[in-house]
């Protein structure tokens, strides 16, 4: 039973509550992203697992052993930092071999493992170079090799790709995923980049003001956000607030269907609808009754980005956003009357 268990962890800095009652299991061999805006506590949680920060309350278990009081150097973790944090005065081989040396592995055995690790990050033969002779992407690969060569119980990644430019970042995402799959390491990845989190992770945990508001598979969290914050932070969403009427919700005079279990008659609820789930048609060609929900609206503006179109619309007092494919090359003009439609299962009831 390896993996990481965090139990009832809390951390305050003075009167500021950074983390509140975090209880979470990070399953062995999975890739979990901690996703949240700055100040949400994601980095603090990672640093508590690493041992750089002591929690005020709660316990941390790594690979089944309670490490709450264990100093960083005795935890057997691999960590990759945003700034790479390579040792500038050591060669690449010495950098990668540093952790092995601390474990008493030296000489031939160490060299073999260093070579293997450099092979894994696709930098074979780079052992003799110095960090300053490498590009940013190469430095981050070395940092990754240095962290995995010691066969850590958990691999902790603190926004490791955010210092790279976009193209390199996408390339490194693919590499990171491949290396994680090959090594089978339990990985916890801190990021504020939602796309990165969705692409890489087995599980995504969304943090808001020191709490994990939702954790699950990327598709699950994206398609069924539990709170307004989760829906907003991961992707885009339209929020429709109204009162429960029978088995539907009455919003601005329209009746919106959802498949979620609704509270009692008259209660106020908020539904989230992803902009790409909504179909947009000119009012005159719209067929009624094909899908559960339809809403008349007026286009207020169109953002043209080539492959896709973003429509900003109004329907009564409601402001809506719709993503559409640019399939026929003639976007609807501002002021056009349209009908928006989507199926009931895409109206997701959220808290807050």
């Amino acid at each position: 039973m390896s993996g990481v268990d965090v139990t009832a962890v809390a951390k305050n800095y003075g009167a500021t509550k950074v983390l509140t009652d975090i209880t979470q299991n990070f399953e062995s061999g999975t890739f979990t992203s901690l996703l949240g805006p700055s100040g949400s506590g994601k980095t603090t949680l990672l640093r508590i697992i690493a041992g750089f920060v002591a929690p005020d309350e709660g316990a941390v278990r790594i690979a089944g052993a309670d490490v709450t009081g264990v100093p960083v150097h005795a935890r057997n973790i691999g960590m990759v930092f945003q700034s790479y944090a390579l040792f500038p005065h050591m060669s690449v081989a010495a950098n990668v071999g540093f952790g092995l040396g601390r474990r008493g592995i030296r000489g031939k055995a160490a060299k073999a493992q260093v070579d293997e690790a450099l092979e894994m990050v696709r930098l074979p033969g780079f052992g003799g170079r110095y960090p300053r002779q490498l590009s940013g992407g190469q430095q981050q690969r070395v940092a990754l090799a240095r962290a995995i060569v010691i066969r850590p119980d958990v691999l902790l990644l603190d926004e490791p790709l955010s210092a790279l430019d976009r193209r390199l970042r996408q390339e490194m995402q693919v590499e990171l995923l491949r290396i994680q799959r090959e090594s089978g390491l339990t990985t916890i990845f801190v990021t504020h980049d939602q796309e990165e989190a969705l692409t890489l992770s087995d599980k995504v945990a969304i943090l808001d003001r020191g709490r994990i508001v939702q954790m699950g598979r990327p598709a699950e969290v994206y398609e069924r956000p539990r709170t307004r914050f989760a829906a907003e932070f991961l992707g885009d969403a339209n929020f429709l607030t109204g009162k429960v009427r029978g088995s539907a919700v009455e919003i601005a005079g329209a009746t919106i269907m959802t498949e979620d279990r609704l509270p009692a008659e008259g209660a106020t609820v908020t539904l989230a609808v992803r902009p790409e789930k909504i179909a947009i048609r000119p009012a005159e060609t719209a067929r009624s009754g094909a899908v559960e929900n339809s809403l008349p609206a007026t286009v207020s503006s169109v953002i043209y980005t080539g492959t896709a179109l973003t429509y900003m619309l109004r329907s009564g007092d409601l402001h809506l956003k719709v993503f559409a494919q640019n399939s026929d090359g003639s976007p609807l003009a501002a002021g056009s009357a349209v009908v928006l439609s989507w199926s009931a299962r895409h109206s997701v009831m959220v808290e807050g």
Partner: protein
Amino acid sequence: MPPEASAAGLPATRRRMPSWLATAALLLPSYAWLTLAVLLPLAAMFAFSFLHATPLGNKPVVWTLEQYRAFYDQPYLLGVAWASLSIGLWTTGICAVVGFAAALALVRATAGRARETLLILVLLPFWTNGLVRVFSWTMVIREGGFLDVFVRWFWPSAPSLGFLYTTPAIVLGLVHGYLPYMVLTCYIALLSVDEAVIEAAQSLGARWWTVLFKILVPLAAPGLVTGAILIFVPVIGAFMEPRILGGRVGVTMGTVIEDQFTQAFNWPLGSALAFTMLAVVLAVFATFSGVLRRSATT
């Protein structure tokens, strides 16, 4: 309209002063002053070092190389040189250990105003008159001085701990005066060490002494070397601390050279000894310039 055209063109051409001229104009004042105030006297001293005797009164001017044979002719100078060297090494070594520790504490354990205040306290010896600083130590470490008074508060029958007029006393005075150099150079070197580098080492299993000797000391090496040069060079030529705190044991190259100028009136020998030391100092620089250049490129 040619006149107007040339008038408009004039400022443009005047602005285009050759860059070498601007550089020369900016450098000239300081180089002229250096030539006048340092290089000329130094050249005169260098010339003196090849004379047989101080050219005063109506003594004839005799050119000779004999002054540079002083270490051969007067073997006691070798002992003096060794004393200077060992005082220099002890002072530099103690400054390195104490100064590095202080710089590390300033960088790692303090922040904001507390750090500024502590840094200013480190610099205090710079702001006190050297003579006052050295004499105040005689009050502390002489027999029956403040040190003895303090110890006898706790242990009335304690033997005297006074060590005035010993080599350790000289080293103490020199460490006091020159420590700030080492603290400052190490402080600057350590400031540039990324916190994440230390954390990375810890995450890989490094305990504090591994972090210290495998990460911090190598990364701060340029600061240590710069500080060591800034201290070692003036310390081997120092004469005030050896005179006041060393008494009879305080015979160093610095005091011997000073004696040649002020007591023995043998300027040629004094100059020759001074230039021999300058050669040693330049050799020290040459040895370490490689280290410094390497650090400048990282």
